[in-house]
């Protein structure tokens, strides 16, 4: 039943409930698709038996009646989430073979909702990257190709395996994490939807930390509705995370509505930057018209500190990372290399265990926190971050949500971008919302002239995921984005 892998989560859920097909058939279809797509390198671990076990439970439950929300839905899980007994490596050699004896809160929530696991998804090492090229498992190959070319493209990153899996039909939905665009940029590159909720909506407990004040988990799926369904299952208060928001999870799916009457859409003039391809700005204008058509009123807004968001991010994120990654020392888990004494062991282990980009960020982070530089770099960045948050607060006095492009370009070729700074620029539109902890989503808007997907980016007020999802739905209905990558793998 290969048609199953073309269905949305909502369709699978409902079709399974009315008995069109069994959960086992769904799991088998996806297990087969996963096994047949290894050339994409999207999965680092395949767990077909896990997906089948969950399916069996679902099929039994269906017979007996009451079903949890994700019964019969198999999902792909980013390798950043701790999964009990299953390799959890954050795409890094330093965690090779690490099998946690615990389950992250988010994946535990998904399992409680009935979901099964198809496997662990490839990603940039410790989520540090925008192209999935920093993974210790090698890059993920995007299922998308430029018209008339077979140059291997990146799916974006860091949730590159997640994005590739959804767009290639290797999972109906997946978990991702977003520190500075890691859900939204790959979603845009692969023509799928992905949302980063308000900071604190999803527990960080059991998610390998990159930058604690920015990390947020979120879903990636083919449709806005599927994102709402998954986010409802993933989110929720967790006493084990001191930054978790103690609030009920709204019924986002039930409240989905593409009617935006009375909503004001902010269009930040600072996001019109040089060097962005004209077709991206054209798509942005089309997006404005779609939202107007849905009843919203566009208003120009100003986010004056936008230009400083990336440098701010590249001080704060590496600083937190340099400290968060200190625990990978070869003592309690993961890789250990021997060296001269304890310090020699540390240095040899971390030299062998970390890849170039991770080392680069640890070096930057260590430097900006070091004696004599802390005030000039870290404290300064936290002040600018406060100003960026204030920009949004002010802007939201005159609008209810913000529309921008998701990324400044379409997917690029593997190995095409070698200079770190130009790689960092991929997240120029995504990072401000991360620094402010705001909910933000990427939805497919169309294809560029090479036939590659482009995404539109919606930023909402704190805790207002609903408006973001509703606007995403309005765009989805109007963009009519149905393109799928042609199967070449």
């Amino acid at each position: 039943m290969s048609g199953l892998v073309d269905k949305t989560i909502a369709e699978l859920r409902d079709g399974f409930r009315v008995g069109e097909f069994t959960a086992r058939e769904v799991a088998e279809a996806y297990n087969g698709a996963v096994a047949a797509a290894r050339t994409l390198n999207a999965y680092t671990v395949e767990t077909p038996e896990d997906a089948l076990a969950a399916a069996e439970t679902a099929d039994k439950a269906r017979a007996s009646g009451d079903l949890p929300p994700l019964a019969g839905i198999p999902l792909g899980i980013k390798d950043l989430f701790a999964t009990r007994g299953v390799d959890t490596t954050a795409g890094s050699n330093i965690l090779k073979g690490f099998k946690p004896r615990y389950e992250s809160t988010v994946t535990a929530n998904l399992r409680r909702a009935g979901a099964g696991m198809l496997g662990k998804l490839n990603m940039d090492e410790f989520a540090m990257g925008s192209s999935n090229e920093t993974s210790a498992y090698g890059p993920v190959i995007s299922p998308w190709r430029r018209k008339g070319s077979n140059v291997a493209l990146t799916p974006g990153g860091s949730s590159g395996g997640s994005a590739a899996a959804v767009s290639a039909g290797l999972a109906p939905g997946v978990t991702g994490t977003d520190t500075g665009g890691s859900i939204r940029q790959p979603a845009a590159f692969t023509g799928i939807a992905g949302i980063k909720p308000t900071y604190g909506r999803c527990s960080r407990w059991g998610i390998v930390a990159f930058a604690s004040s920015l990390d947020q988990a979120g879903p990636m799926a083919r449709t806005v509705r599927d994102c709402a369904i998954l986010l409802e299952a993933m989110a929720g208060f967790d006493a084990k995370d001191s930054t978790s928001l103690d609030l009920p999870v709204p019924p986002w799916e039930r409240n989905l509505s593409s009617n935006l009457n009375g909503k004001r859409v902010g269009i930040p003039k600072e996001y019109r930057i040089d060097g962005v391809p004209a077709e991206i700005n054209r798509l942005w204008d089309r997006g404005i018209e779609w939202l107007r058509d849905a009843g919203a009123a566009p208003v120009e807004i100003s986010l004056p500190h936008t230009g400083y968001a990336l440098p701010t991010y590249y001080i704060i994120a590496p600083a937190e990372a340099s400290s968060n990654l200190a625990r990978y020392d070869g003592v309690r888990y993961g890789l250990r290399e021997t060296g001269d004494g304890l310090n020699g062991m540390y240095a040899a282990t971390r030299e062998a265990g970390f890849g170039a980009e991770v080392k680069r960020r640890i070096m930057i982070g260590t430097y900006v926190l070091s004696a004599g530089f802390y005030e000039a770099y870290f404290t300064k960045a936290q002040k600018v971050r406060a100003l960026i948050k204030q920009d949004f607060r002010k802007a939201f006095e005159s609008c209810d949500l913000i529309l921008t492009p998701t990324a400044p370009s379409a997917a690029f070729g593997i190995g095409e971008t070698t200079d770190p700074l130009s790689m960092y620029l991929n997240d120029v539109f995504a990072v401000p919302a991360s620094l402010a902890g705001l909910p933000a989503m990427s939805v497919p808007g169309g294809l560029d002239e090479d036939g590659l997907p482009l995404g539109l980016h919606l930023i909402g007020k704190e805790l207002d995921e609903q408006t973001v999802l509703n606007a995403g739905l309005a765009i989805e209905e109007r963009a009519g984005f149905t393109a799928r990558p042609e199967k070449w793998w």
Partner: protein
Amino acid sequence: MSVTFEQVRHIATLARIAMSDEELERFVPELNNILGWVEQLGEVDTDGVEPLTAVIEQKLRLRADVVNDGNIRDEVLANAPDAQHGFFAVPKVIE
């Protein structure tokens, strides 16, 4: 500010990452390039601005003093590269 070879060596030591002189050499221009870029924050007037302390305004919750964890030595040691007699073993430390 621009970093010197010696500073880069010091940072690598602080970060406990072994690096050859060649690697350190390569890092000098690379870090300077990135640091030079982030230093544009110097243009921003932040006088009287409080550094951000909480991304989303909320109060720190405190937990009740109950013992509800521990006694899981096997789980704690399960992934250890070298565990002996219930301890983690590391190369001898001289204090």
